[in-house]
């Protein structure tokens, strides 16, 4: 983007570079989207389908963050933004994961009353 040792910005150079950046982002995202839909329509086992969809989603989120939102480790501000996003993701993982942990456990205890194994886990007099 910036020529070495000068602060001069070459508009054409920068513009075409950035244009390419958006084009790559669009292409990769399109591929991943098509891949996710194709996985659904395929005849793979369910576990494979779900894993493929999840991996495609994760990769596409990363593509968007990199190519469209310009998060990266280089450059102070984009690094700060990236750290902010990563910190948020950790807290979100705690909250969303915790919710699923708790609610799934509750649901399990409501459904599986036939399962004596689970009955033992119940607190006495609860």
């Amino acid at each position, binding site marked *: 983007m910036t020529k070495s040792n000068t602060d001069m910005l070459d508009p054409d150079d920068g513009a075409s570079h950035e244009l390419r950046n958006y084009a790559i982002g669009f292409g990769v995202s399109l591929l991943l989207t098509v891949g996710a839909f194709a996985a659904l329509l395929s005849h793979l086992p369910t576990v494979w389908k779900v894993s493929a969809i999840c991996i495609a989603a994760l990769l596409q989120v990363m593509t968007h963050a990199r190519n469209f939102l310009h998060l990266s480790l280089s450059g102070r501000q984009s690094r700060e933004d990236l750290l902010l996003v990563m910190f948020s993701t950790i807290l979100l993982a*705690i909250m969303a994961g915790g919710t699923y942990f708790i609610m799934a456990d509750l649901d399990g205890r409501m459904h599986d009353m036939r399962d004596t194994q689970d009955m033992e886990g119940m607190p006495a007099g609860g």
Partner: protein
Amino acid sequence: MTRTTSPIFGRLDWSVTPYTDLLRKVDSNSLVGAGAATVLVLGAIVTIALITWKKWWGPLFKDWLTSPDAKKIGIMYIVLGLVMMARGIAEGFVMRTHQTTALGTLAEPEKGLVAPEHFSQLFSTHGTIMIFFVAMPLLIGLINFVLPQQLGARDMAFPVLNQVSLGLTAAGAGLVMISLLIGKFGTGGWTMYPPYTGITYSPGEGVDYWVWAILISGLGSTLTGMNFAVTIFKNRAPGMEFMRMPLFCWTSLCVAIMLIYAMPALTVSSAMLALDRYAGFRFFANDGGGNMMNYANIFWMFGHPEVYILILPAFGVFSEISSTFSGKKLYGYTSLVIASMSIAVISFTVWLHHFFTMGQSAGVNIAFGIATMIIAIPTGVKIYDWMATMWRGRVRLTTPIVYLTGFFLLFVIGGLSGIILANPSIDYQVHNTTFLVAHFHNVIIPGTLFGMLAGIHYWYPKAFGYRLDETWGRRTALLFVAGFMLTFLPLYVLGLMGLPRRSPTFQNPAFMPWMIVAEVGACLMLAALASLFWTFRTSFKNRTKLAVPGGDPWNGATLEWSTPAPVPEWTFPCIPEVTARDDWGETKRAGDPWRAPDTYSDIEMPANTLHGLLIAAASFGLGFAMVWHIWWLAIVSFLAIPGIMAVRGMREIEPKIIPASQVREEDRKFRERVASLTPVTRADEASERNQGVPDLSEFAG
């Protein structure tokens, strides 16, 4: 209970005021209700009359309500918090009085000052007010006032947004206040658990008041959190590295992080509750795929970080005052920083301990019980750090130190009862009893309340130019300490004896002695409140004797003490270059701290604006209209909000410029004033000789 909805007035009619109840039946219950409404109306009339009589409308509007200055916004937050606190403490007093008269007999099982329904409203508003409209405004106000000054910044990163946040908080507080006069508040406690608060069991306007007050003020708090975080990240003075920030700034950063990430959970849970109530969604319904436990889950995902939002600013204040009033450097700065940040993050991993008994497996309970116990460790580290700070220091027994001592003794007890409750198997025995009530009052009052009052006492001279009266300050502090102990320590015993919380009546005569002790405590709390207001009044009357124009009455070490008291609008004549932690203390040690800067330049300040007031009015209108189903007003107010923002977006707004010459002149006057005042030693700090210029030879910290 179906009511007709008029297209113009919604569900409002003349039957909604407490006076109607009084006309229907005169008893202690309707008298208390009508009395509270009368206090509200008379209070409003007296305030308006006083402002008109003193011709304060102009200054109030020009200097305060339209000001985007963080310091003024902070003071307005604190005033809001103190006004709401008066109501909260009065309600607490009524509740205690009710319970001391509530011993039922076989012939008459339900007795007491107020009706059970009214009692439920009391504990619901008391909790809502104390958490959202007392503790939050007090701490946000204090941070607003102190944070930019300690960072060496002129203002918050987004001054107008700050004004909007205040407006939203005030709009929420207004909704809770108006519920005294128009209609009734909810009866589901401050947490408003469905399905009881669903439309089937709570069809009236009460829960809606809560929902809208929370949604509106919650948005304000989220925006405030953003503002704090960005200010700390982007607006520090040159040289103010993270590890040079005063500890209060660190705890403010923790608060900001928790506000940003925890408030959305509250927004989601109350918005879901609103959808259930207004649109018939089934999130928390009893049947048809609803799951009421999900409410508790999402609510406490906010609720637990909220607890630390309340306590961390107090920890920041105690860090500042333990160092200043001992004349020593803060012990273990790095460990305090690490402890604060750990608390901020771990507080997001413990929320299930608020509903151990909801029915999940023992394994889930154990995971969260252990996390809860872990969070006590950094808190313990902090207590030791403050004690080590005071160890062998020259401790002056000023009002903030009285609060700090009370905090040390009582907060540790409260914390330890928390560790007891963190054990799920013990929690099964004492949950939902007054043991729990005693526990959380025992951390929030000695923690948050004492911390905020100590902070107000400490920074008051910076805001208004005179100190608060020490004698009355200490009396207030001791009254609060004694009042707290008598009111709440008996509740531990009552809880272990089996008194459920929120119980409007009981039949066990063995409770009575403890009830009476608690009632005496409640009287002391009322006295403490009166004494607090008396402190403000008597200090204002003696303001010339208590004046500290030198600006540094406590011989402090952080940047805010380098400026005059009261601090000018622009805070610093030129932005300081920070070279050390406790920069002002280092400057003092180097000698001649009041040297004038070499050059002055024009200062750009954000111009006054009506923006916050307009948004506040529109959001209050929206909340009120939604509560009473006045659909036209709701639509108009809802559209007004983006409209107001769009109009502001179209205009180019010029900042207010303060010319360099004016800054130079004011600064010269201040420095001459400092040179003319006699320095005061620490021993004389509480006397009239303290004019805000400390004896530098005594600065050791």
